[in-house]
C-alpha cells in the first residue's frame, strides 16, 4: 500500500501537470482537495469550475466534473450550475487576472448575491500564462512586461473587495501556509453563501524572474517574510504605526451569516 496524495481525486493519467517548476498552483490544489476530502463530499456531487489562466488548468487534473470556461466568466457559469442544481457542491478555481481584471463585475455581483459556493483565487500577481503582463494585483514598483519601469498603479485588495461586496467568509493565505490555507478552505466549504479564499502563490517563471526572486525558494521565502497577520496589522494600526510597504495581510477577514442564495431549504 502506498499513501499518495488523495489518489481518489487526482486524474493520475494526466499528471505530471503542465505548471512550471515550483508553481504554487499545485500546492493550492493539494490544499483544496484535502479540504474537500475532509468534508467527505462525493466525487459525483462536487464540481470544479475555472476560467482562463494558469490557475484555471487545475480542474483538468481532478476526477470530478469540471467546467473550463471563458475568460473571467467562471463565476457566471458557477452561478448557473448552482441555480440549475442546488444539490451540487460548487468550487471555483480562478486567478487574479481572471477574477479581478476581466471578471471583476461578476465577482462583486456574485458576492452581492451571496451564492452558495467557494471561490479560491490563486493570486500570482501577474498574468503568467500569456507571458508576464501586469495584472491589477501587481504590486507597485514591480516589473512585468507591460510595466518595464515598475508598476505605478495601486493594487486591488481582493479580500477587502469581497468583504465590502458581501461575501460570507473571506480569508487570505499564501501557498507557504498550507495548514492554514487548508483550514480556511474547509471553513469556506462548510459556510453557506459565497466564501472567498485568496491564496497568494509564487510564480518564479513570469514574476520572480523579473523581480530578483528567480528561484522558487526565494519567492516562497519572500511570501513568508512579507506576510503579516491580520490581527497584528490591526494592532499596529491601532497603535498608529503604518504597515511597511509591500507587506500584505493574511488571515481570516470575515465570517458572517448573511442570507445566502442557492441553498436548499
Amino acid at each position, binding site marked *: 500500500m502506498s499513501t499518495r496524495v488523495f489518489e481518489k481525486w487526482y486524474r493520475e493519467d494526466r499528471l505530471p501537470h503542465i505548471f512550471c517548476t*515550483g508553481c504554487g498552483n499545485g500546492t493550492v490544489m493539494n490544499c483544496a482537495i484535502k479540504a474537500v476530502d475532509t468534508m467527505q463530499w462525493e466525487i459525483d456531487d462536487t464540481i470544479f469550475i475555472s476560467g482562463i489562466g494558469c490557475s484555471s488548468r487545475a480542474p483538468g487534473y481532478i476526477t470530478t466534473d469540471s467546467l473550463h470556461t471563458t475568460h473571467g466568466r467562471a463565476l457566471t457559469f458557477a452561478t448557473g450550475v448552482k441555480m440549475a442544481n442546488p444539490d451540487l457542491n460548487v468550487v471555483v478555481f480562478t486567478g487574479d487576472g481572471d477574477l479581478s481584471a476581466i471578471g471583476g463585475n461578476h465577482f462583486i455581483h456574485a458576492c452581492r448575491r451571496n451564492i452558495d459556493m467557494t471561490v479560491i483565487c490563486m493570486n500570482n500577481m501577474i498574468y503568467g500564462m500569456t507571458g508576464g503582463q501586469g495584472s491589477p494585483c501587481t504590486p507597485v514598483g514591480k516589473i512585468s512586461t507591460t510595466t518595464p519601469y515598475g508598476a505605478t498603479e495601486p493594487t486591488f485588495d481582493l479580500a477587502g473587495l469581497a468583504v465590502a461586496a458581501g461575501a460570507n467568509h473571506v480569508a487570505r493565505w499564501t501557498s507557504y501556509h498550507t495548514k492554514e490555507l487548508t483550514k480556511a478552505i474547509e471553513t469556506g466549504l462548510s459556510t453557506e453563501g459565497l466564501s472567498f479564499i485568496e491564496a497568494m502563490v509564487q510564480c518564479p517563471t513570469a514574476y520572480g524572474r523579473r523581480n530578483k526572486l528567480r528561484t522558487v525558494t526565494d519567492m516562497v521565502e519572500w511570501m513568508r517574510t512579507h506576510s503579516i497577520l491580520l490581527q497584528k496589522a490591526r494592532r499596529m494600526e491601532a497603535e498608529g504605526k503604518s504597515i511597511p510597504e509591500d507587506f500584505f495581510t493574511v488571515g481570516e477577514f470575515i465570517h458572517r451569516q448573511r442570507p445566502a442564495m442557492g441553498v436548499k431549504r
Partner: protein
Amino acid sequence: MKLKIDEQRCKGCNLCTTVCPYNIFQEGRKLNERGIIVPILDRPQRCTNCRLRHLYGRQLCGACQMICPDQAIYWVEEDPYSEESVVIEF
C-alpha cells in the same frame, strides 16, 4: 513506512528542502533521465510520518507532501526484510 519521491513527477523545485523540519530533503546533484535534478533523501528514517504513522494511526506532519506542487512525495509500506529499515522510537 518509507519516504519516496516519484521521479516521473518531480520537477526539481526544491520546495521540500525548505519545509522539512528534519532537513531530510537535500538538493540533489545528478540529472535523472528526464533532465531534472531530483532532491536526495538524507537519512529518511528520521521522518516523523515514517516512524509513528502506525502507532498513531493517522497522517503525521506531511508538510512536504502538502507543499509539493507536483504531488511527487509519498510513503510506501516497507517489506520486512528491506535494506533501509525504519527505527521505531517509542
